[in-house]
């Protein structure tokens, strides 16, 4: 049964009556029940694109913050890629000092509204949480991400945010390539140091994967626009429709255009396919294409968008990550009657955030686990009408530490699908590497950088995010953007 936001709020009010204002012992704090994230009713939300998770109410955020033990050793901070002072902001949230809480987060993270929504907290800050450890269940850890989201949203909606201060002009010019999470965080820190910063984006809208990849129902685009506006308010110039490597080479930007340093955060951006038979039939899409049509080009709004999206009834999504969940849930919202995640391992090995998997299930997405695609079949017109799958079992752990799926001979079967979405990750985009002599990459095409400074093999050129990490997360990309900006600021000071 779906619990409404009003019901959840009433429960939180009761908790506050019982616990608020008292000097609580850790044992009592642990007894406070975890606050569920209010969400749109699944039956309703599969028919709209609006955000699924509604965010805590004020009572809920206080109740959840009371669960925090304020541990001396602060294990959660070590779990955060940008080392936010988590206990400090939670303590402020518990007191209702939301502006203060938001300011504490902003010291370390530029995009809390976004990270509160898309970070995989269960494998980061919430993994070592003492509350979760005591209750022997990571899902019962303090909901750090939900509290973060609340205070960030509160500060934005109540206009209590502070635009980061910009230092005195240094006269140095810096280019930031790509306007996704890595580029945004690098640009902010470079600008704060007083450099003139120009950010280059290839698409007609800035935001990178936050705009073309992550759907509206998980990350409203108005939030991304707001964060980008903070950058422009700080004086960062954003140039859209500019493809570095094509419109201009890195060498020309350093030479002719006079940039003193460049940060490249161009993303992974080259979808991987399985290389199985039938993958180029009509009705097979990369998740990037499917999501870009829906998100960036607004194809979900069929009455208005001039970009078409495929009419699907039975959709198979290959993959088990967040992107696979996003694609599956988008297909469902676009009217597909049956959407199935096909994953060759089990749910335990799925890289997607637990919340996304749970939301997908609530929305009626089916999960065909321990199945691997062998080939895609089509009708006489080349339109997909089935996928041959083979059943797997789990064998020994592989290099990633996850148990390797082993195909069971003789278990092949053709399943009835009219659409296939391939969401098995991305390779590095080759454009910059192909047009930049001396830029070293590894065998997957990821830029090779100095571990500490993130400088590439070219002096003054730094890189971070997926172009270095392979397909990773928003927060890791942000962390690298900041790490590179720090080294760049030091480098620029020597010029």
């Amino acid at each position, binding site marked *: 049964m779906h619990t409404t936001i009003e019901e959840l709020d009433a429960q939180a009010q009761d908790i506050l009556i019982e616990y608020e204002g008292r000097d609580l012992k850790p044992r009592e704090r642990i007894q406070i029940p975890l606050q569920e994230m209010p969400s749109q009713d699944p039956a309703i939300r599969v028919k709209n694109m609006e955000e699924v998770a509604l965010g805590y109410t004020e009572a809920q955020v206080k109740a959840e913050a009371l669960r925090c033990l304020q541990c001396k050793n602060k294990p959660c901070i070590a779990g955060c890629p940008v080392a936010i002072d988590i206990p400090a902001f939670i303590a402020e949230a518990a007191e209702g000092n939301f502006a203060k809480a938001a300011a504490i987060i902003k010291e370390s993270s530029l995009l809390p509204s976004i990270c509160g929504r898309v970070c995989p907290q269960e494998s980061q800050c919430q993994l070592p949480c003492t509350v979760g450890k005591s209750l022997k269940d990571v899902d019962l850890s303090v909901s750090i991400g939900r509290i973060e989201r609340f205070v960030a949203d509160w500060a934005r909606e109540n206009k209590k945010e502070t635009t980061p201060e910009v230092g005195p002009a240094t006269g140095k010019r810096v280019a930031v390539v790509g306007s996704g999470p890595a580029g945004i965080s690098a640009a902010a820190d470079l600008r704060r140091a007083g450099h003139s910063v120009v950010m280059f984006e*290839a*698409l*007609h809208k800035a935001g990178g994967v936050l705009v*073309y990849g992550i759907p509206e129902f998980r990350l409203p685009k108005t939030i991304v626009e707001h964060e980008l506006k903070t950058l422009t308010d700080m004086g960062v110039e954003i140039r*859209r*429709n*500019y*493809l570095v490597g*094509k*419109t*201009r080479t890195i060498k020309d930007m350093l030479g002719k255009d006079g940039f003193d340093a460049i940060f490249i955060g161009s*993303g992974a*951006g*080259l*979808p991987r*396919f399985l*290389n199985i038979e039938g*993958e*180029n*039939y*009509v*009705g097979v*899409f*990369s998740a*990037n*294409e499917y999501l*870009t*049509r829906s998100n*960036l*080009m*607004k194809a979900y*709004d069929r009455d*208005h*968008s*001039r*970009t*078409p999206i*495929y*009419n699907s009834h039975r959709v198979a999504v290959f993959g088990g990550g967040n992107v696979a969940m996003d694609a599956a849930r988008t297909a469902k919202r676009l009217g597909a009657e049956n959407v199935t995640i096909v994953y060759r391992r089990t749910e335990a090995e799925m890289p997607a955030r637990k919340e996304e998997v749970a939301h997908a299930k609530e929305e009626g997405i089916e999960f065909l686990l321990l199945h691997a695609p062998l080939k895609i079949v089509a009708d006489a*017109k*080349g339109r997909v009408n089935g996928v041959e799958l083979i059943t797997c079992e789990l064998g020994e752990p592989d290099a990633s530490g996850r148990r390797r799926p082993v195909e069971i001979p003789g278990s092949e079967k053709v399943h009835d699908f009219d659409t296939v979405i391939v969401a098995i990750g991305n390779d590095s*985009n*080759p*454009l910059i590497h192909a047009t930049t002599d001396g830029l070293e990459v590894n065998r997957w095409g990821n830029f090779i950088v100095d571990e500490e400074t993130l400088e590439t093999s070219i002096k003054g050129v730094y890189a971070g995010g997926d172009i270095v990490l392979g397909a990773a997360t928003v927060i890791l990309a942000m962390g690298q953007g900041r790490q590179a900006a720090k080294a760049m600021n030091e480098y620029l000071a020597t010029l």
Partner: protein
Amino acid sequence: MNTILSKERLSAEVFRMEIRAPEIAEARKPGQFIILQMGGEYDERIPLTIADASVERGSITLIFQAVGESTHRLALLEVGDTIANLLGPLGMPTEIKHYGKVVCIGGGIGVAPLYPIVEGMKRAGNDVTVIIGARTKELLILEDEMRAQADRLIVVTDDGSYGRKALVTEPLKELCQREKIDCVVAIGPPVMMKYVSLTTAEFDVHTIVSLNSIMIDGTGMCGGCRVIVDGKTKFACVNGPEFDGHLVDWDNLLLRLSTYRDVEEEAHHRCHIGLEIKEGEA
């Protein structure tokens, strides 16, 4: 940015626009394309091959056929208007070098992107024969421009209303029979490029084609433009748009181009309503 400097109607449904875009003009090479988006929240991204460019004027020239809703709307823009979003140059340039005897073939609107290649091939010292074709005389474009560049020009129309009544493959085959051709470049409808490739394969003549597969971003990110070349999946936007015509899986390309045909036909019909281009003219 991206201001329309001049506009000309080359035929009932074909328009030429010169657009101010100094950075693209400087970087572009023959064979490359741009993607434009008209600026509205719901507007699509349209790939168009660059027909010409002038570094001095800081401009590029696009020649396009009003075939769909978006190209119709583009055709309604006037001198002084701006194109909100213009990205380029995209794709790999044509491999222009000294081949010897080169035949450049353009069909329909494909004559436009062929023009800078003809120019380049001439500049590289090749003997260049140009074959241009269209369904009918009204749709023929750039005849004078091509005549000025080419060593010889052959004009064909499907209905014989102008030039020779033939498909481009007929004069091509005769040329191949008569002398050793070193390279053929063909740009036009996929079916034309397919039959050009089949024709030249008989004579073992290296053939370059430019593929117009469906794409969104044009930077390699979406993979919608993938084509099968020599049995391998390639992305037309970053690996192409030009490929060896003898290695392209034409049937797959034609299938993939039909992906949204049902949706597009509906939109095409709708787009004539309210636009000044009459049904039947485009």
